[in-house]
């Protein structure tokens, strides 16, 4: 690669140290294994997985941007379009539905005034539907970043949205 220009996205020094630590986990020449972890690191910092960010991660690992893009788009966790401050990833799978997941989801959509895939006008919330989050006994469930919110009810959803809106 010949890109000499300074990338528009750059990891913080702490994250750059973490990048080195991650790459060292794999055998010589297998640094591509670091791709998924680095994309998570990118999204944690930037809020989404931007084209510039993917190019930057590619440079760090010595792989083409298209390779990064191909991988990032295979997985559901990388937001390859801009998203709101809080991305709510709501489980839509069978077991959660048995626990009333669909009704609670209808309430959540009404409360936020948006549909699946949309972002609120104030940029606070993006709503996504995801598949089973491995918490089926505690359904309905959604996730915001690392945190799981479980045993959801309409009331609980209102509380959580109030908390996150602060």
């Amino acid at each position, binding site marked *: 690669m010949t890109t000499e220009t300074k990338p528009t996205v750059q990891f913080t020094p702490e994250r750059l140290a973490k990048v080195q630590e991650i790459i060292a986990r794999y055998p010589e020449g297998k640094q591509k*294994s670091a791709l998924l972890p680095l994309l998570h690191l990118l999204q944690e910092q930037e809020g989404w997985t931007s084209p510039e960010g993917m190019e930057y991660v590619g440079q760090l690992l010595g792989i083409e941007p298209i390779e990064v893009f191909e991988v990032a788009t295979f997985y559901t966790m990388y937001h390859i379009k801009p998203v709101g401050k809080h991305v709510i990833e709501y489980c839509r799978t069978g077991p959660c539905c048995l626990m009333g997941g669909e009704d609670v989801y209808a309430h959540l959509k009404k409360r936020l005034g948006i549909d699946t895939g949309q972002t609120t006008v104030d940029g606070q919330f993006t709503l996504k539907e995801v598949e089973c989050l491995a918490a*089926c006994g505690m359904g309905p469930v959604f996730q915001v970043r*690392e945190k799981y919110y479980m045993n959801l009810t309409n009331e609980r959803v209102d509380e959580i949205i109030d908390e996150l809106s602060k």
Partner: protein
Amino acid sequence: MATKILTEHINVPGIETFDVYRKQGGYTAVEKAVKTMTPESIVEEVKKAGVRGRGGAGFPMGMKWSFLAKPEGIPRYLVCNADESEPGTFKDHYLMKNNPHLLIEGMIISSFALGANTSYIYVRGELMYVITILEKAIAEAKAQGFLGKNILGSGYDLELVVQPGGGAYICGEETALLESLEGKRGNPRNKPPFPAVKGLYQCPTVVNNVESIATTPWIITNGGDAYAAVGIGRSTGTKLISASGHINKPGVYEIELGVPVEDFIYADEWCGGIRPGHKFKALVAGGSSVPILPANLALTLANGEKRLMSYESLSEGGFQTGTMLGSGGFIVFDETACIVRNTWNFSRFYHHESCGQCSPCREGTGWMEKVLHRIEYGHGHQQDIDLLVDVAKKIEGNTICPLGDAAAWPVASAIRHFRNEFQWHIDRPTEATQPGAVYRGEMELV
């Protein structure tokens, strides 16, 4: 008291810390293994234990280990499958979050037995907070000399790496997992070659589920024969069951294999019965991929005997009247559940998760989702039920990986046992699409 092999200490406060885990006898199995046993003798104990893979396929773990190729000068790898994404399954999540050191201890023993010096735990990316818990526990174990160079002065070196996934059910399939771990899209590989010969980085590799690996500390401490003495027949030991749906007490339960399904559902010790005022309609016993059974077949075999929670008993009767233990994702439906809606929901899942490499799976899952959607929403055609059966048949056995079968079985079994309910949706669309409407025709509720 029922034997607890995996969860005996899970509720001890602070068990996620090294000190508390150690006080409960933790890491003594590692000491025993690396100081007094050879890798071969560990494999032998695991074989004697008869423990079968807990990720879903039920392949004997000791046998898998003995197939690992051992060419000179080439590294071997152990990869722990913690991708847990099969709908209805949440036991590995529970185990890792509450007792991370148990998995780590199991990884050290298993890696030593296989001669691996770097081992990976591939955790679904959504469980980032569990990854943090595991990494903390690994750092503790390393600080105490149980990981890293020259473990306990034995000359054996091991590094443990936790790898996050990116969100993809298919990466639970072992070869897709290896692709993903190499930083690629999670497309399953053609087999052969099998991972035991060419796995991670084209080196010999064993992939085992979290729960499988977590049995090894107990097996080393108590012996393979003691493990095999628990359970029933070839279903040795205990199994973690993830119980969800319309029961009084959803959660993860460790049972000795061989408990009657009826007891598991109704006893206070486990699910505590169907929620008050409702009746038992159907069961998915082993995760979304296994055939669904109506209540009577879930509880009783064709010969009138009680069906048991074991590999053999759950599959008794084949797909006509039986199912599979699978991953132990136990989903209970009462009479308010619409089988058509649930089948559509599952088929949407498989369509969404198909990697798209083989056309029967890519196209077939899409077809099934579409046809089920139109039946559920009141636009079904008379020939749709037969069409679904036909599509399911065309997928089954014709794909690179078992996701195709996993997508076909729920549909085929739902139609086999609940055909009237599908027919009702097609014949009475107005009635069937009323809010909360559920088929109340002829069926056996318990």
